[in-house]
């Protein structure tokens, strides 16, 4: 149960059984992509939250801004509500991907670990500028 470099590993599912260098390269690529996707989903959630907040005051201005009870009822704002549904889906995806990455790294294969780290770095580097654009 310490890190090791090897091209044999079993990842997450019993059919994902790697025992060749090419298979290892493919697995490393898949883990890298999953890691990039995790960062993208995280950023997508933030972007959706910003859009939802931008959508909220506009619809409020048509209603009575003074009534605080209206603010607590999201049912009258369908656009905002759909943003929220999207955010929820993103959140579930983020939770599942996060746990998957954790379990993959738990295989203690150093290649997989490096792939996860590199993917996270790459994903953050590529996706972060999107947040500013909103």
């Amino acid at each position, binding site marked *: *149960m310490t890190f090791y470099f090897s091209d044999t590993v079993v990842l997450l599912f*019993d059919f994902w059984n790697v025992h060749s260098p090419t298979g290892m390269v493919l697995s490393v690529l898949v883990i890298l992509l999953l890691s990039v996707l995790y960062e993208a989903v*995280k950023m997508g959630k933030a972007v959706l939250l910003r859009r939802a907040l931008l959508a*909220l005051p506009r619809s409020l201005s048509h209603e009575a801004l003074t009534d605080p009870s209206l*603010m607590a009822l999201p049912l009258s704002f369908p656009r905002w509500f759909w943003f*929220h549904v999207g955010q929820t889906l993103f*959140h579930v995806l983020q939770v599942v991907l*996060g746990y998957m990455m*954790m*379990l993959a790294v738990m295989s203690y294969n150093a290649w997989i670990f490096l792939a996860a780290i590199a993917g996270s770095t790459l994903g953050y580097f590529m996706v972060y500028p999107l947040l500013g654009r909103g």
Partner: protein
Amino acid sequence: MRSSVEPTASEQSCSVCRLLLPSHSIDSTAKQKRDWAWDHELGASGAGSASSTAGPTFLCAFVNLSVLKMSHHMNSSTLPTSHPPEHQHPTSTASGHGGHDMMMMAMTFHFSCENVPLLFSGLTINSPGEMAGAFVAVFFLAMFYEGLKIARECLLRKSQVSIRYNSMPVPGPNGTILMETHKTVGQQMLSLPHLLQTVLHIIQVVVSYFLMLIFMTYNGYLCIAVAAGAGTGYFFFSWKKAVVVDITEHCH
């Protein structure tokens, strides 16, 4: 089926016994995993984690201790008879496969309702009905976790807002004095909101580690329960977060 294992002292000094290695390494594995998931949690929660630097190591030690205790309990409970350790080496390696299976965790995803250990040694799932109960319990635990995260954020905002309002009337017309009082009020360590935040933080860390350990069982049903609970909790609690954020942004 059962491996005869001496309790703790001989276990740790015993270097030859192959059977015991899995349980020990599982403990270290669990610790590693916890650290990793902690990073993920930090990245995921983002805001509201200002006061969360000292927590993980302390709690990690705590959970680790309990896990160690748990595994020892499991070991000692599996075998009523205690043989001298020298005598038991051949027997445990010979009949050790069953015990090995019992102690060893699955390392890939599977859907089964039999013999699924759930956090504690007393909580072993053996029937579909029990699995359904565990599914519901885990679902609500994950929902509770999401609600707690949002509640902590709301409380933090509320306390910050009240601090700001408290500091408003105190200073005179000078603007620099206003900033000063605001800072001193904001950095109080022994205040009620901060203590409440700390207690809630402890609960949150414990629950998140529990959820992670549940996911670590690789049981498909329980993993689905965790994900579905997180999604449902986020759906039902997070709209409040957005509204609160919006209100505070109006106040700015």
